[in-house]
């Protein structure tokens, strides 16, 4: 099993010792339906229960299994990013280790990939979670992500997704970006689609997320939006901000002149300060834009974005 792996399943595991034996059984059941050269990369995200030992046994038993263990709990994004890095397959399918995703759906995801898509996302149409704490916030979040980032999917939160490995390896994931992978990938020209998948209620183990996530996701969306907008062409984006301030400053000038003509002496201090402030900030943002361009250009010089270049060929 070397570099000609067809499919890599990446499964992050964090304190899921109860789920691992049934997960292994399900994987064995689905293996015949998958390409011959399939590997499963378990990423143990610093589990503190028996998960590591169980996974080690799985790896010893099954030739298709591999495991990467993180030194401590780094969070789902880092776990997935590590899984992507170690995956050797041409296609990567990511799924949860908590049995809520059904591996039987994987062949259907792969079918869509064959049809020419770069990312196929699962959509938990009949989601088996609590309405108020899980389903409703998720629906709002998906709508928001679709509106703001422009890629409309019913279910960004669904972990079961198939990716073209080349695109995933060209993306750099950090912080909490895994949720927005499809939106990030479309920036590199990826074609995204979704299919309904099976979803089962959690029967074993504990959920790692709660309602507190809502605020974090909201901030994340804004952050991702800003980063993607600004890192594409920083000079333009910052230039727009500079333009806003310049506009406000210029608008104030006639008001100031009018005030002078009317002889309002005291008010003459406020308006000039507005003008100066706006002019200075405008300069500041312009300079930041230059700086941003510099940063992005340094990067592009030594590593061109892989996905983009392949899209040009196609």
């Amino acid at each position, binding site marked *: 099993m070397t570099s000609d792996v067809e499919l890599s399943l990446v499964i992050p595991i964090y304190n899921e010792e109860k789920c691992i034996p049934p997960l292994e059984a399900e994987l064995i059941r689905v293996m015949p339906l998958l390409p011959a050269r399939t590997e499963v990369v378990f990423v143990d995200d610093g589990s503190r229960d028996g998960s590591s030992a169980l996974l080690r046994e799985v790896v010893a038993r099954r030739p298709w299994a*591999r495991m990467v263990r993180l*030194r401590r709990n*780094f969070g789902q994004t880092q776990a997935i990013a590590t899984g992507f890095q170690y995956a050797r397959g041409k296609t990567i399918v990511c799924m949860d280790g908590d049995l809520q995703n059904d591996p039987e759906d994987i062949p259907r995801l792969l079918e869509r990939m064959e049809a020419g898509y770069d990312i196929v996302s699962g959509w938990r149409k009949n989601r088996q979670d609590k309405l108020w704490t899980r389903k409703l916030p998720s629906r709002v979040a998906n709508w928001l992500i679709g509106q703001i980032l422009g890629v409309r999917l019913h279910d960004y939160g669904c972990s079961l997704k198939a990716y073209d490995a080349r695109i995933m390896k060209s993306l750099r994931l950090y912080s909490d970006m895994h949720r927005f992978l499809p939106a990030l990938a479309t920036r590199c020209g990826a074609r995204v689609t979704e299919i309904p998948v099976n979803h089962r209620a959690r029967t074993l183990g504990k959920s790692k997320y709660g309602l507190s996530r809502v605020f974090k996701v909201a*901030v994340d969306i804004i952050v991702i939006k800003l980063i993607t907008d600004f890192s594409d062409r920083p000079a333009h984006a910052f230039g727009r901000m500079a333009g806003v301030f310049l506009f406000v400053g210029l608008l104030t000038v006639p008001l100031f002149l009018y005030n002078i003509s009317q002889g309002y002496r005291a008010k003459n201090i*406020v308006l000039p300060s507005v003008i100066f402030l706006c002019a200075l900030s405008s300069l500041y943002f312009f300079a930041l834009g230059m700086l941003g361009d510099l940063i992005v250009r340094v990067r592009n010089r030594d590593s061109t974005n892989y996905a983009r270049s392949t899209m040009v060929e196609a």
Partner: protein
Amino acid sequence: MTLQTGAFTTENDVSAAPTNREEFDVSVIAIASNEHVDAELFVSMIDSIREVAHRENLRTEIIVVDDGIGGDFWRCIQILSQRVPNFRALRFRRTFGESVAVRIAVGYSRAPLVVTTTWYLQVAPDALIEVVKTLRNGADFVATRRTKRVDSAVARLQSWAFNRVTTRVTGVQLHDLNCSFRGFKRSIIDRINFHGDLFRFIPILAVSQGFRVEEVPVAHLAERGPSTFLNISLYLRRFLDIFGLFFLMKFTKKPLRFFGLSGFAMFMAGALIAAFAAVRKIVNDIGVLDRPELVLALFLMVLGPIVLSIGLIGEIIIFTQGAQTSDYCVDEVVEHDTRTSSRKDGEKLGAGR
């Protein structure tokens, strides 16, 4: 690292070094920075370390870093190198500081375990045994805590306050970051990103990378560094160090959270003040332009985007430049075909990619 080319010279030719790293049990790295170095104390430190190592049957090599002192001290080192076996010394052309010294000295070390020390006997040499034992029991990094302190009450108070604040800010329970006597596995040092004054925080950075850090008590013997008594600029530096560390640990991966939220708060405060002024103008007809509120509101509303945009620049740097996504956090890779679990230490790293 650019410093490595020609920034220092070495005593005892390196090319003669055996390539087998397992020849030694522990490398002791002694760093002498640009301060009043006493040759006699230095020699006695080297001798007592060797004595302890000999007693405990630890195959020890000693690496001395002359951090820009030169002169008589370097001559003393040259004489020492004639009589002390397994002795190496590096001389920097100028003072580069402890962080650089440790990094480069570790590059020259040939043992799997490394212990760093000051140029004089800061703590009882038996600490070496304790540190090595703890490392062999599975710790990745061993910090020490000086007990029965011999320095002045003021120095202890300063030290206590510094460690308290650092513990509070970082949440890592360590009691004596200023003690330079430390031990670690040679392979972990590449996984920890430290530079400049972050040297004293290495144990904390190690914890944040998921390494196992332990603290052992050691007997305090002497304190000879530059006086830190009521040194205002030093206090300021330490404060900035701690703040920098806090930022490094919390927001390195998400600078926009920090700057964005504070910038947004400023902008909203400005907008509120402006709205307040507008309401007063409409309802009570109190003038807007001749009162200071509007200027304050404007300042805040401008400052908000400025702060936010600094976070954006930081985020762009990480988004576009952050090449090493996850290398540092991988502990081990388990494969089926070999059935060996390779701990991700040192040389094995390249294999997985």
